[in-house]
């Protein structure tokens, strides 16, 4: 499999403080990859830098093209899409307008099909299509942010903490949808603190600590790794074996 996204030896700094150090990562076509790690490990910083919101030194290639010199808008045009932690919706505009703007770069006929697809994935959005985005519940806002990103028919969707602050039942819903994206031909790079849920749907995982990747491998292996289990999954294998 060829790498869709290839990040090599990436460094991201806020002034003199390096928040991400020497990170390399790959996402293949049709793959779901997750980056797990504690709060402040640099996960969000890394995603923002891949999108071009923060300056990055190192290499970022996407679909065989060098992204490093490109503006955010050009990376979007190349098929890279980010659902940021704060969602960045157009709060004073309704759901339908938010989705329509998600397809800003796409031909009208294609956008019509995108509407279908997003409304099928998130029937709730269809019910709320005339409601202002700012008045939606947290879960609906997350769905809208994902829907808006999908309207642009991206090749890779980067999700930053999609479960943050949401009720467990909604979280399950969102994760199920992320799993369904693969069938639609969208690769996913998922950043999550909810490691358990993320590892369940991901193919591969990277573990981030203090700005560096300390582990990577197939998600199933990472899930059974002792250190990961102790730090991120909330139990140790000793206690598990006692049960």
């Amino acid at each position, binding site marked *: 499999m060829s790498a869709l996204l290839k990040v090599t030896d990436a460094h991201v700094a806020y002034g003199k403080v390096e928040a991400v150090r020497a990170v390399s990562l790959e996402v293949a076509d049709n793959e779901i990859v997750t980056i797990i790690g504690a709060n402040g490990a640099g996960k969000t910083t890394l995603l923002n830098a891949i999108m071009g919101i923060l300056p990055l030194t190192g290499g970022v290639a996407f679909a065989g093209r060098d992204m490093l010199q490109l503006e*955010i808008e050009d990376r979007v045009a190349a098929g890279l899409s980010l659902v940021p932690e704060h969602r960045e919706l*157009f709060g*004073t505009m309704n759901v339908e*307008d938010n989705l*329509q*703007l998600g397809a800003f770069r796409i031909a009208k006929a294609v956008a019509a099909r995108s509407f279908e697809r997003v409304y099928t994935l998130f029937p709730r959005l269809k019910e709320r299509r005339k409601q202002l985005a700012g008045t939606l519940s947290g879960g609906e806002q997350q769905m809208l942010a994902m829907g808006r990103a999908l*309207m642009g028919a991206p090749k890779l969707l980067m999700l930053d903490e999609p479960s943050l602050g949401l009720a467990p039942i909604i979280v399950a819903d969102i994760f199920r949808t992320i799993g369904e994206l693969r069938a639609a031909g969208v690769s996913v790079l998922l950043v999550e603190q909810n490691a358990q849920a993320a590892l369940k749907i991901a193919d591969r995982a990277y573990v981030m600590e203090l700005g560096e990747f300390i582990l990577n491998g197939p998600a199933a292996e990472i899930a059974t790794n002792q250190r990961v289990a102790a730090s991120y999954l909330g139990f140790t294998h000793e206690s598990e074996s006692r049960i």
Partner: protein
Amino acid sequence: MNTTIMLFLVQDGITNGAIYALLGLALVLVFAVTRVILIPQGEFVTFGALTYATLSAGNMPGTAQLAVAMGVVAFGLDLFGGRRSLHLRLVARAFAINILLPVAIYALTYWFAGKNTPIAVNIALSLLIVAAIGLFLYRLVFQPLAHTSVLVLLIASVGAHLALQGLGLVFFGAEGQRGPTISDAAFMVGPLRFTGQSIAVYAITIAFIVGLWLFFGLTLYGKALRATAVNRLGARLVGIRTTLSGQIAFLLASVIGALSGILIVPITTLYYDTGFLIGLKGFIAAIIGGLVSYPLTAVAALVVGTVEAFSSFYASNFKEVIVFTLILPVLVLRSLAAPEVEEEKD
């Protein structure tokens, strides 16, 4: 005071207020989209009005040359900015917008100037010329500064205002000018005399507000502009270029400014520096609207126009003082309502 005088003053106030409303709306739009407080708005008014007056007098306006000159510099900037990846397509596009467009406008103006052209053609030419200047003003001054703070943008805005005002003096001289009216018709309603010109002011103002409302509510580009104003990062993440939004905003602002100038130059004598004061009154309306609210700005503009009319009747020496004093209670109230002012991060 009798009712007739009062009605006259209200009528006068609303006519001026309609113009201030247009200018105020343009200021709110530009600020929301680009964070620029558009002080050169007044120069758009002057340039529109005096270009129209010059054309009507059968002469060639200097603003047409300015548009070409600004286009050439913009072309250089575009080439320099894209030097790392100069495709033929990019160069062709930059050439078409920066060179062909202003040259075509110049050629059209040259072709029509001096002949007995109908008023509509002169209006269209004036709008085209000022629209091109507005577009290039964004490209030359504000696009390179798009990432800086509101304060830096404001300083650049003051600089652009001074430069354009100086150019206005070069192009149009220190003499005041008047332009021909759009219509000489007039009729009486009770004691009030409505001229064709004042009707044109109302009609065009209303048409523009409705047009803007439709543009922002229904079209994809209008929505993209609103999206940029609501959430700049969100807009970039769906692929809306900040520069595109900025260009559309400046294009609209310059057309609105020029149109306002063309509407008032038959009523008032305009000098090369008159636009600044007119723009400032639109600015007061925009400030009363908090630089965010379109309806509040429009209403405030009518109040500004009316207060101006009454104060010029009762205390004409203090006319400007009274009008600009309106801003003080608003600023005090606003500062009480929102004690913390944060410089946005972006």
